[in-house]
């Protein structure tokens, strides 16, 4: 089942539903009764993007239309802003291939910017050559009525490295999925996430990491905040296949639930079939620390400001791991501007 196939075929039965284990917290079939027509090409001018001024070049995919490939030859270093923009109430499927040659280095500043109601699936096929490096930062601000899926498949050659940070405020229903294959040996992946869901918004961050080659490293930290009637979903799965000896995999997911009607669902999974493997996972879901809140208020910080400060501090650890300085500042300012509304 896939949203992209449903959009292309027009067959509602193709939509992912809660009957699939993998989609039980992010049912789309129950939500989408009619699949809208594909949106026409967008002719107007786009508003400024969140990463303007930080990239060597900008690639735009508007209403699903845009280039099919971003390729870096061996040894090339580049910063590319990738803007997925939705304008209009149609459906927007898109496919993009990103190829990095050996030792190429790409910083991908990806934004998912949407307004109004639309249905979208963006598929990315990413391959990293030997010793190549990708830092991917995704900032998703989808429309309130959007049903949005992003699915990235990343293949890591030996010694390649991926560092990813997904930052999202959710959508009506949203899945940001990343599948990483440590095909070669000695590759590393950092897969971080940060979600802020309020109102009736939903965010699902799903990752599947498969260690096939030996000595691969995976380090994951996801933190989230659910307020009002928001719902956050984290599904993290790490598989260490036979022969992937020496794998080192760590996964952490920590969430704050700020209201009674907010919800966070988490499913961390480790499956290990190799020897000499170091794996760990930690998962916590709780409320804001009332002791700290009283302490801050005792010093004169008003309650709303204290809540926002503590929420922002809770999320800070994920932001600090972003390596690209400009992107880190953009994300820090973005999170600061949103925590006040949630807390």
């Amino acid at each position, binding site marked *: 089942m896939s949203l992209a196939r449903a959009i292309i075929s027009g067959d509602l039965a193709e939509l992912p539903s809660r009957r699939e284990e993998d989609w039980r917290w992010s049912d789309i079939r129950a939500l989408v009764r009619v699949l809208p027509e594909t949106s026409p090409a967008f002719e107007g001018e786009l508003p400024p993007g969140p990463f303007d001024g930080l990239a060597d070049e900008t690639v735009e995919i508007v209403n699903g239309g845009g280039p099919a490939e971003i390729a870096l030859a061996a040894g090339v270093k580049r910063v590319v802003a990738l803007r997925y923009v939705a304008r209009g109430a149609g459906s927007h499927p898109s496919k993009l291939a990103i190829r990095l040659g050996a030792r190429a280095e790409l910083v991908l500043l990806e934004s998912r910017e949407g307004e109004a109601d639309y249905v979208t699936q963006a598929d990315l096929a990413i391959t990293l050559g030997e010793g190549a490096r990708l830092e991917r930062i995704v900032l998703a601000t989808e429309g309130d009525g959007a049903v949005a899926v992003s699915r990235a498949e990343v293949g890591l050659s030996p010694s390649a490295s991926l560092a990813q940070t997904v930052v999202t405020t959710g959508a009506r229903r949203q899945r940001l999925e990343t599948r990483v294959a440590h095909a070669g040996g000695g590759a590393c992946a950092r897969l971080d996430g940060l979600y802020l869901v309020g109102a009736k918004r939903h965010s699902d961050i799903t990752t599947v990491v498969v260690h096939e080659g030996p000595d691969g490293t995976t380090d994951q930290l996801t933190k989230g905040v659910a307020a009002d009637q928001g719902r956050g979903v984290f599904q993290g799965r790490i598989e260490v296949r036979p022969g992937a000896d020496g794998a080192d995999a760590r996964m952490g997911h920590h969430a704050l639930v700020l209201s009674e009607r907010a919800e966070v669902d988490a499913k961390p999974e480790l499956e290990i079939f190799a020897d000499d493997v170091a794996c760990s996972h930690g998962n916590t879901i709780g409320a804001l620390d009332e002791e700290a809140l009283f302490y801050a*208020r*005792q010093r*004169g*910080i008003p309650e709303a400001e204290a809540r926002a400060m503590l929420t922002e*501090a809770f999320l*800070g650890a994920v932001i600090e791991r972003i390596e690209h300085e400009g992107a880190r500042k953009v994300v820090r300012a973005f999170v600061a501007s949103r925590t006040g509304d949630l807390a």
Partner: protein
Amino acid sequence: MLSIDNLHVRVADAEILKGVTLDVPAGEVHAVMGPNGAGKSTLAYALAGRPGYEVTAGSARLDGADLLDMSPDARAAAGVFLSFQYPVAIPGVPALTFLRTALNAQHKVRGEAEVSAPDFLRLVRARAGELKMDFDMLRRGLNVDFSGGEKKRMEILQMMTLSPRLAILDETDSGLDIDALKIVAQGVNAMRAPDRAMLVITHYQRLLDHIRPDKVHVLAAGRIAASGGPELAHELERAGYDRYASAA
């Protein structure tokens, strides 16, 4: 300045304070001593407005203003400072950021000008020096990985910076070695002022060797069981609290 009258406080369905009456005039330092479980910390928390500390009767006023009617942050802006027995660590918020946010929040409520970053740093650097604190530590998360003594110095640094009208020090001596105790006491003594009242809560007399109170009150079983001059603290040190415990 601080006027507490017949204060009754419940915590989780148990009445802890059963009619505390206490006046601390401006310019004076009063000590509240008492056995464990007497309600000393409850008195401190109730004055600061901690959620869960329910005042069922009585009043507490600062310069005539009803404290019990105010939120914890409004009380702070009105001049109430509580030095916590167990200061809270806040990872991700540097101590300097926290303190500057607090100071400017209080200034805003009182209609005073915001303190600029350079002025603030100058002020805090000087105070930290007096308390023999490592300034770089203040760039780290508030109280994160601070030792017990460092946390207490951090409390005194905040008190000095926020310059409250009423300072309540809850067991500030606990967890301090003798050198740290002297430094903290010097900090507190430097804060004595004609327009400031201080309430020093302690189980032991040793802090009062360094901070000489104008009056000493014994809190036992939720009430003030005795009041007197500094000599009362020495008498307690000698005879213990048994007399008051049995009276309860």
